[in-house]
């Protein structure tokens, strides 16, 4: 059996704080993504999901320290930091950033900006690059003639698709996306999600989707990982996370999300996430959890299997009622 396209093993990220302390932003995150699958990483702001995928691209600031392994086709690319990641960046693993649609250079044509990474990474140049650009624009649903347009001549949704085309410039096999549809209208969002699903189904891309929007994950992703305080607390096939929820935080997140068809009360989760500049004992969610017992305060729960490919980090995972 072939190894997963992308495998992350025990990833940790620390940030230096101005007061001399450190912030433990990502605390031992592990997951794997196969070709043609889509993993949604969800959690509240500050849970570490964006930091995690920035670490996979090696795009962390100088104040960051990382440890762990990031395996592309079984080879650890994080081993020596920038040195080992740079050759893979954009060619094997690429990213669509949050607000990418606003990050275009306003004085360069779209086509030229998509060619740029190709030439930078020695992937293609000249006429070959130009024809690749046409192909990419078609793939993302933009008329190839628009390559001559400037960013301000395209709408928000089209710019987001152009950003996806730019990420695909060097034919990566793994695509990371940080809140790709947050600033978009629901109809345009549907178009972009349809595109991303197509890229993964038809072109075999492995997709990692960071978002705070659970319904998007439910409808678009094959698998999901719920993050809290820098850790993954539940992970598995999306259907299982909804129909067989095994972590109280996941259940509360579903309960906090209104649904067009559902009629029940929408709940909020009291309290705030813990600070990450101190070592936590016990379960980080215990102070806000309605199932918390004394064991939860003293003993940190590890991620354990609770079903087929489904893990949860909770002492009482079997007592958690399903969201459905």
């Amino acid at each position, binding site marked *: 059996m072939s190894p997963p396209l992308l495998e992350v093993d025990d990833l940790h990220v620390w940030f230096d704080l101005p007061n001399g302390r450190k912030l433990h932003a990502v605390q031992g995150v592990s997951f794997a993504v196969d070709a043609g699958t889509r993993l949604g990483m969800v959690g*509240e*702001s500050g849970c570490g999901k964006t930091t995690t995928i920035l670490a996979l691209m090696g795009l962390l600031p100088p104040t960051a320290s990382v440890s762990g392994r990031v395996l592309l086709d079984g080879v650890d690319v994080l081993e020596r930091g920038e040195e080992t990641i740079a050759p893979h960046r954009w060619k094997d693993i690429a990213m669509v950033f949050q607000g990418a649609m606003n990050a275009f250079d306003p004085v360069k044509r779209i086509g030229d900006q998509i060619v740029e990474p190709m030439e930078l990474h020695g992937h293609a140049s000249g006429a070959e690059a130009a024809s690749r650009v046409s192909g990419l624009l078609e793939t993302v649903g933009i008329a190839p003639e628009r390559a001559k347009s400037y960013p301000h001549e395209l*709408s*928000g*949704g*089209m710019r987001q698709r152009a950003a996806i085309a730019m990420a695909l410039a060097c034919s990566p096999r793994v695509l990371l996306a940080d809140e790709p549809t947050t600033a978009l*209208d*629901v*109809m*345009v*969002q*549907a*178009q972009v*999600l*349809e595109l991303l699903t197509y890229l993964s189904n038809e072109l075999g891309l492995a997709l990692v989707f960071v978002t*705070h*929007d*659970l*319904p*998007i994950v*439910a*409808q*678009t992703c094959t698998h999901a990982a719920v993050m809290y305080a820098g850790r993954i607390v539940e992970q598995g096939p*999306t*259907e299982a*996370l*909804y*129909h067989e929820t095994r972590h109280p935080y996941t259940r*509360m*997140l*579903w309960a*906090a*999300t*209104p*649904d*067009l*068809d*559902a009629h029940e009360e*929408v*709940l*909020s*989760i009291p309290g*705030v996430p813990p600070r990450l500049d101190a070592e936590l004992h016990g379960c980080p969610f215990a102070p806000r959890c309605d199932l918390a017992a004394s064991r939860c305060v003293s003993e940190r729960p590890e991620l354990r299997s609770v079903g087929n490919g489904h893990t949860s980090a909770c002492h009482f995972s079997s007592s958690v009622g399903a*969201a*459905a």
Partner: protein
Amino acid sequence: MSGSDGNGRALLQVDDLVVRYPIPRGLSGAVLRRERRFVHAVSGVSLHVDRGEMVALVGESGCGKTTTAQAILRLVDSDSGSVSFDGVDVTGISQSDLRELRRRMQIIYQDPYESLDPRFRVSTTVAEPLVIHGIGSRSERRGRVNYALEQVGLAPAELFVDRFPHELSGGQRQRVAIAASLVLGPELLVADEPVSMLDVSVRAGILGILDELRDQGLAVLMITHDLSTAARFADRICVMYLGRIVEEGPTRRVIEDPRHPYTKALLSVVPRRDPRHRTDVQILRGETPNPIAVPAGCRFHPRCPIAVDACREVDPELRTLAGERDHRAACILA
């Protein structure tokens, strides 16, 4: 329980509101006598909100929902149409009458991180409306501030009055903004995307406050692009497209039996929580056209999946649907 006042009159009544912005022609345009072009932000919107009722104004960006709200509050000037508040037409009133009116209509903004002056403590921010209108002595104001803070769940108030915004979370800041709008005892609250910038775990708390206020008799006009939130909290929904309301009615009627093709498409693409959910997803091609170049006939016809020839010529009115009481749609095929 919603209700108009004794005369059967809604608290807020908007009729045929039109707001358009001229696009500057420039010197060459004026000399060459080029036709003046306008951004047709709002092209004839009529709606009403009763006391104790929450109406959701939903639509995508560029549909004119925010401009409508601003015109209602007289933060922008309308070109024609009327806005009546408690029976009085407010579109042409004087500045001093407007100031009086501002006490009865309040607005909450989308961005809780920008809504509060970073240099003001919570007590100063919440007391500001009272100071502006010269209401109450210092101790009276303090009492009203504390009461408003407790109304929004920031209790005990003493714990929050001296804090600065940077010491509060996003949800807490939005609560302060709501408290500041409540302290004058308004009758109408316009909430512009009140929770879209907050984490999903805190949204219910904020929406719950608006829910409570509505139960206590406040009229709430909520602007949102999130249909799921509108479906859960609003009594009625008005769907806007390119400056017009294309469908409106009681929430459950619009959600369960949408009649306008735009509403149907919109509802079909809203993601549901259940991964096993299957609908006929109707993804419309292209994007909402520019409000400068509004299509002739029905403004939706270029993207409409069921458009017929007549749709290119007829601009449909918002009509009550057969067999329904309050459910209206602007479609000749509805």
